[in-house]
């Protein structure tokens, strides 16, 4: 074996070993690398107890309510399987909307209401002009009425 073949093998083996160890480390820390928990994970007690964590999902359509004090907002985060009610006191980001993604940090109270200290809007990977979004909405509505008939 020529020296450069040896070096090639050494570098190839080294990078492969590193990749393997990185994979093992990352899978060991899998839980800690999660930025947020879904409502289903919380229902299944996979989220940390008595500690702040983040909840992520969609804001359920028709669930956003403003309280009488004008500051507190309550809404429901859903992943279509499970729902978690959230209460938040403060200003909401511009992209916070019913039916859109949200990630919010806080603590789960004993009454099952998640008291949030921070609300972030999670945007999806779709980019389209307003006319296209409108057309898509119309098409979905049309489909729904067909199903209902």
């Amino acid at each position, binding site marked *: 074996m020529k020296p450069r073949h040896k070096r090639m093998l050494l*570098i190839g083996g080294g990078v492969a070993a590193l990749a393997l160890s990185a994979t093992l480390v990352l899978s060991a820390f899998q839980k800690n690398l999660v930025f947020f928990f879904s409502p289903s994970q919380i229902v299944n007690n996979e989220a940390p107890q008595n500690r702040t964590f983040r909840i992520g999902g969609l804001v359920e359509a028709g669930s956003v309510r403003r309280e009488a004090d004008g500051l507190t907002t309550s809404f429901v985060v859903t992943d279509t399987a499970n729902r978690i009610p959230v209460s938040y006191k403060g200003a909401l980001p511009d992209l916070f909307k019913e039916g859109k993604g949200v990630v919010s940090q806080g603590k789960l109270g004993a009454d099952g209401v998640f008291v949030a200290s921070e609300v*972030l809007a999670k*945007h999806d990977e*779709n980019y*389209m002009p307003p*006319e296209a979004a409108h057309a898509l909405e119309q098409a979905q509505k049309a489909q729904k009425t067909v199903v209902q008939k």
Partner: protein
Amino acid sequence: MTSSGKALSEKLPEFSGGINWFKYASPQTFYPLAGRLIPLFGWPALVLTVVGLYISFFVAPTDATQGESYRIIFIHVPAAWMSMVIYLAMAFWCAVGLIFNTRLSFMMSQALAPTGAIWTFVALWTGALWGKPTWGAWWVWDARLTSELILLFLYLGYMALVAAIDDPRRADRAGAVVALVGAINVPIIYFSVTWWNTLHQGASVSVTSAPKMASIMLTGMLIMALAAWAYSVSVVLVRVRAIMLERERNSDWVADRVAQLVESHR
């Protein structure tokens, strides 16, 4: 004076396959080639940037949910792509340099690093500017953002290490190890949004599925990406020429070049 490229190709006949691939492995022959290539990438970079920015700001429509702030993608996405591609190129040249003992490979890697670091910074900075109005936060510690920040530190660490060691041969080797070890981070950045729950959205453009963007937005973004490629290639070639002159300043070919230059200005 024998060219090291010629010597290498004689040592490695099985790799040349009839074509002398190693001819341009020597700084002496690569220097004039790089000089000829710079305008071939520099001018397209300028034209593509002008066309790309025009499409980005005047032709592409407003986004339905994000409004005007989405236009950051025309800079943010090409910058993030370049930050990863350049790191892989750097790691590739370091591996070639370690295996074949070619000093030009290490010079290529060192020329790539500052450009890669700048793109990484641009990706992080534009992302923060977009994150505030869209998410409601400048910065969050999610997997995508954190791994991209680590990439910036890898670039800076590589440059600092190479600069800190006086003996260029030892600096090349030490830097190469950092570059190769850090390459593990690139697939982590790319797949972070699919492996873990992140605040950062998934990829809008990928090889395996149809793009999730209106076609004119996509066109603008791809033109900007091509511009970023052309700019990076030209600027790296300029830098590698400077590195070649600096490191080979005691060699005959640099002395000849300088003598020619002095002659032409007389």
